[in-house]
């Protein structure tokens, strides 16, 4: 955890200085900023939590008086999102905050919008059009770090499953490439099954159940989102044995990691991956550009990678992440709820109601962002078109090898 926050730590001072900047133009504010929230699809916990955070922030004072937010859900089809963008541009949107369906397919429309003066902020998924701003954890190394954690847990040898995301998706490819870069170093690690869980708990559960039928002797599971389904599939076999699992941020997965009975049966692992709170950070950055004329030093901003190993799971007594807690007690939220909906430094305005209902936290006001931000490394096909990656893009940042290949 510590290394992740090193860069952010120094920013607090700058944050205090920026408070005054925000207040002044807010008073003079007459016109409302027309902001569009463009989702690809809604229907899983992650997407609706991210959208709810943006809606809640837009309704938090003083933004409630300054922002006119409209939400458009266009589905998983690129053409549909292009035409959604086009109508937003015809309506002279000041800014579009969006989860893009494709890293390249939307570029032409985005370029046209930038020329018109519309700001484009992409959260989580990215686009390669240079005029858009990407705010994402993708480049932060989820794949390689979780893969190394799994290798460490298996002491460098064993049969593993790869529970992937959506076939053909650039995010799935980046994660898997990162993971394979690690697994290939260890000749003792064998990928015995590779399947697509579609980032859904149910699909991951049934696909894992099929893989377990073929390979009951599996030693570990490397999973993307949907990891709670992998745990449920193991529990459903009725076998006492559980194996190490690395995955993303569902509340059910974190509860399972911290369950002493499961730990005794062999479950260990780490919860990492995509945080819905990214959407809130992207929205606040965009608003600071619009309202305060903030200039950003880069178009590709990296959101810190969450990293919660089993021994770091800490239950939250209340509705916020306070005192280092990072998981909600069973029953408070569904197992599929993605826990990373808070960020105390960047997004102190958020609480559970913001993620669940899209309503502002009572009494909260928008706090300015730290002046510093972390630039994401150039990654071809993810955040730039024709560029050369700088340095080792699969460098480990969260965990170090405890076993040598």
């Amino acid at each position, binding site marked *: 955890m510590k290394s992740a926050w090193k860069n952010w730590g120094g920013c607090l001072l700058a944050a205090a200085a920026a408070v005054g900047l925000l207040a002044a133009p807010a008073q003079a504010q007459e016109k409302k900023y027309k902001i569009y929230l463009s989702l690809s699809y*809604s*229907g*899983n916990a992650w*997407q609706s939590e991210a959208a709810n955070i943006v809606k809640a922030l837009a309704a938090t004072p003083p933004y409630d008086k300054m922002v006119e937010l409209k939400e458009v859900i266009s589905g998983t089809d690129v053409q549909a999102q292009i035409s959604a963008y086009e109508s937003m541009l015809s309506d002279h949107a000041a800014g579009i905050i969006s989860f893009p369906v494709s890293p390249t397919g939307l570029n032409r429309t985005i370029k046209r919008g930038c020329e018109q003066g519309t700001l484009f902020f992409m959260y989580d998924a990215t686009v390669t059009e240079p005029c858009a701003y990407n705010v994402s954890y993708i480049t932060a190394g989820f794949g390689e770090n979780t893969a190394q954690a799994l290798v460490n847990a298996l002491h460098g040898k064993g049969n593993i499953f790869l529970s992937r995301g959506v076939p053909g998706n650039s995010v799935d490819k980046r994660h898997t490439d990162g993971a394979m870069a690690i697994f290939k170093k260890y000749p003792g690690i064998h990928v015995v099954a590779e*399947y697509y869980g579609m980032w859904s708990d*149910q699909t991951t*559960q049934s696909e894992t159940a099929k893989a377990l039928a*073929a390979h009951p*002797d599996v030693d570990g599971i490397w999973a993307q989102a949907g990891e709670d389904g992998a745990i449920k599939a193991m529990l459903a076999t009725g076998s006492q044995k559980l194996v190490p699992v690395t995955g993303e941020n569902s509340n*059910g997965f974190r509860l399972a990691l911290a369950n002493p009975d499961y730990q005794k049966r062999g479950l260990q692992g780490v919860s990492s991956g995509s945080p819905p709170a990214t959407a809130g950070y992207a929205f606040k950055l965009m608003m600071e550009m619009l309202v305060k004329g903030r200039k950003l030093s880069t178009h590709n901003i990296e959101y810190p990678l969450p990293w919660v190993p089993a021994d770091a799971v800490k239950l939250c007594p209340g509705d916020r992440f306070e005192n280092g807690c990072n998981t909600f007690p069973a029953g408070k939220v569904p197992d599929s709820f993605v826990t990373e909906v808070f960020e105390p430094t960047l997004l102190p305005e958020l609480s559970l109601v913001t993620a669940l209902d899209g309503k502002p936290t009572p009494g909260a006001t928008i706090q300015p962002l730290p002046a510093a931000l972390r630039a994401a490394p150039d990654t071809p096909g993810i955040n730039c078109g024709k560029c050369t990656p700088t340095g080792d893009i699969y460098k480990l940042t969260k965990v170090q090898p405890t076993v040598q290949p």
Partner: protein
Amino acid sequence: MSGQDRRAGGRRGISGDVWNALALFGLTALLILGSRWISPGFGGWSQAKAILVLSSFVVVVAFGQQLVILTGGLDLSIASVMTMGGVLAFTFIGASSPALLWGVPGVLLLTAAIGALNGIGVVWLRVPPFIMTLAMGIIVYGATLGLTGGTPRGQPSPLLSALFTADLAGVPLVIYLISVLAVLGTLLQRGTGFGRRLYAVGTNPAAAHIAGLPVRRITMMTYVISGASAGLAGVLMVGYAGGATLTMGQSYQLPSIAAVVVGGTSILGGSGLYLGAVGGALLLTTFSTVIASIGIAEGWRTVIYGIVILLALLLLREELYVWVGRLAARPGGIPPRSTPSTAMTGGNK
């Protein structure tokens, strides 16, 4: 070929349908035993158990889907109805066990009502079944999204989960449940007046109408049952996954139709047996499990799965037996069957 001939064919097909279903069960068992060569973990009881549990959702939705197909229709709303059933169960029944007593019938009534709307559209408004049910699916999906705001909130039910985690003599409880359902469903089709009228309507709705059968009410009833069976599958899914998402039904739309057709039911209506659809569901799930374990890229795996479904349809459909039978009986030629076919589907709308 007249309606008389088809009915005669149907009556002869009773034992044929049963044989067909038994052949599917046998094929499934062979495939499970044979898959030992693909993966050493295969071929045992744990694989069979996993397949039975995974196919239980298809077995349940296929019941209603088959009744609709028997009357010459098609239900494309089941994915959304299944999702709605799951979301309702997750939200309103929650962790309370007594709530199952009113909650499950409540969910089934509501999803049956959605089926009834499908039925009204098809029977009285004369909307083609695939358009009516497709539109209904979109409406139901939208309503579920609106109701939940994207995140269904609720509690997993321990009793529903026990269907999948608890066992009796080493067999998960849900397998007993689908076995009972398979027997009851087959009895409903072959042992009751409703079942017999259903085949008559599916074979030739015009003739059934002239014969004084309540064609509209029977057709309507199949959509009602299809809605309820999709709802029940959704409820079971909540037990399996311990939660509900808005995409939970999506992967069951095509398998529900494929299981019915692979199970020997004519897509034109009028013939088929639930036991066959159960066999179809088991066979397809077994195929997908075995294919999943072959170490090849996802794209090629999907290609193989598609080819397997196509081959199964070609080899197992009842028309083939009838066709081969006719060919053997009358070497002079094959009687044209396009006229009665269009009459059947057209007459139903």
